[in-house]
């Protein structure tokens, strides 16, 4: 335990030994200053990208951007590293509009500002145009139970379809170490062997049309949240100057954008772009999905945070355990084929999105949700479920080798 008599003014950064330490890295427990953190954070992600050969020069890459903290920091870091280390990538922002009033419409505004700030082209695909339903309409029909199932299934496909429209080679998402540890636990709790075996891979879907990768796989959420804070001190004087400029302008409604814009032009340092993320904090930190309070994931999330408090490395350890699971060769895995209706990759006759959509359109929204017993009164589902049950029963539960 740390016993500190006074404020840590004397405590110096363990890397540069010059500045006052500003945070304790959960990964290493090192106490480092803002400047060093900023550098270590970016270089670590660069190492992950290089060591795992995530990209090849000349590739077109879509960044899944929700306007939230992870994807905003990802978009910034990706464009920064692309410049600094000459990755030679063409970067795009890809957003999904689920149609959630008061949540997604606000965060999309944020992404639109990202588009201008980072100079990256933005593509927005909406549930309404892809499926004919907004999440608002779905929730009105089915209530707050299982709504996250619809949203999750639809989003996954929407991102793929958006990526196909952008003709990109890969899709990067802002999933961080905490998210992946949660997913490992969830897949264990659900007994989902197939997902358990792939959820820790840094790149997935390499056999499919658009592989996905997660450059933040080893990045702690705490650091992603703090990252925008650290940059502010570096550029505080420029900001002050920009503030003076902006607040003297007449059109207040978009002062945030102007603020950033002037902050940008008043500095020759490209890093000043980051001031944007700091101020975006005003937008993105408050965007909690209004429909999510019942999500199962929340419990796993809380458990992970409890573990992190006791022992921060627990998060990386869970990821490592997930990676080290070896699924027995004899385990029957669902076979991947294509949905007969829409052609999307699926282990069933119809993909999950088509089943859910069919339920919505026929006024039977429970279709495709939960276990077979919920669907007993659904004629053609019984046939389908019959197959499913059989395949689950015939599936050996898998000896898990470590």
């Amino acid at each position: 335990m740390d016993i500190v008599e006074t404020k840590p003014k004397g405590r110096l950064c363990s890397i540069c030994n010059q500045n006052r330490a500003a945070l304790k890295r959960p990964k290493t427990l090192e106490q480092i200053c803002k400047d060093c953190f900023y550098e270590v954070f970016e270089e670590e992600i660069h190492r992950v990208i290089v060591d795992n050969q995530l990209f090849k020069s000349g590739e077109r890459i879509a960044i899944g951007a929700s306007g939230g903290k992870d994807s905003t920091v990802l978009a910034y870091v990706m464009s920064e590293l692309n410049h600094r280390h000459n990755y030679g990538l063409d970067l795009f922002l890809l957003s999904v509009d689920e149609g959630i009033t008061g949540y997604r419409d606000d965060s999309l505004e944020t992404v639109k500002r990202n588009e201008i700030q980072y100079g990256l082209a933005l593509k927005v695909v909406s549930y309404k145009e892809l499926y004919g339903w907004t999440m608002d309409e779905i929730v009105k029909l089915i209530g707050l139970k299982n709504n996250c199932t619809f949203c999750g299934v639809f989003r996954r496909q929407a991102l793929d379809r958006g990526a196909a429209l952008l003709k990109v080679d890969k899709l990067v998402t802002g999933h961080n170490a905490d998210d992946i540890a949660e997913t490992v636990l969830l897949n264990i709790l659900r007994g989902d062997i197939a997902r358990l075996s792939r959820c820790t891979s840094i790149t997935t879907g390499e056999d499919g049309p658009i592989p996905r990768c997660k450059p933040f796989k080893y990045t702690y959420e705490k650091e992603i949240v703090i990252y925008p804070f650290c940059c502010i001190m570096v550029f505080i004087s420029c900001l002050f100057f920009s503030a003076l400029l902006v607040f003297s302008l007449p059109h207040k409604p978009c002062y945030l954008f102007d603020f950033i814009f002037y902050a940008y032009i008043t500095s020759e340092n490209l890093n000043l772009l980051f001031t944007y993320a700091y101020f975006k904090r005003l937008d993105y930190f408050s965007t909690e999905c209004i429909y999510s309070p019942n999500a199962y994931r929340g419990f796993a999330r809380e458990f992970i945070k409890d573990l992190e408090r006791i022992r921060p490395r627990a998060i990386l350890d869970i990821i490592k355990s997930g990676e080290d699971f070896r699924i027995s060769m004899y385990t029957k895995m669902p076979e991947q084929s294509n949905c007969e209706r829409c052609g999307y990759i699926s282990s069933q006759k119809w993909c999950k999105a088509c089943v859910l959509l069919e339920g919505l359109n026929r006024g039977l929204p429970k279709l495709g949700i939960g276990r077979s017993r919920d669907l007993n009164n659904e004629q053609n589902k019984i046939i389908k479920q019959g197959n499913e049950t059989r395949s689950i029963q015939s599936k050996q539960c898998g000896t898990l080798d470590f």
Partner: protein
Amino acid sequence: MQLTLEFGGGLELLCDSVKIHQVNVDPQDGEKKLTMKQLLGWVRSNLIKERPEMFMKGDSVRPGVLVLVNDCDWELSGQLDTTLDEKDVVVFISTLHGG
């Protein structure tokens, strides 16, 4: 003692959606310095209007809530034992929201 408290990451929703609060908090009787522990108790009874369990767990913040005292991670200053001075800035950010 004058302090600036800032809530982010959805925590502001627990205190009437106000992010920045200028407050006056004095050390408890007999104590010379105000500690984070006392401040948390004060915030809980004076600023948090709903769902206090989203902010605190036991006598500390809920795991997943980051605390910065003058832009410095409170894990470096002794967490609950951190002492506060006049005009200090304390930031609370929840990381329990979507990304």
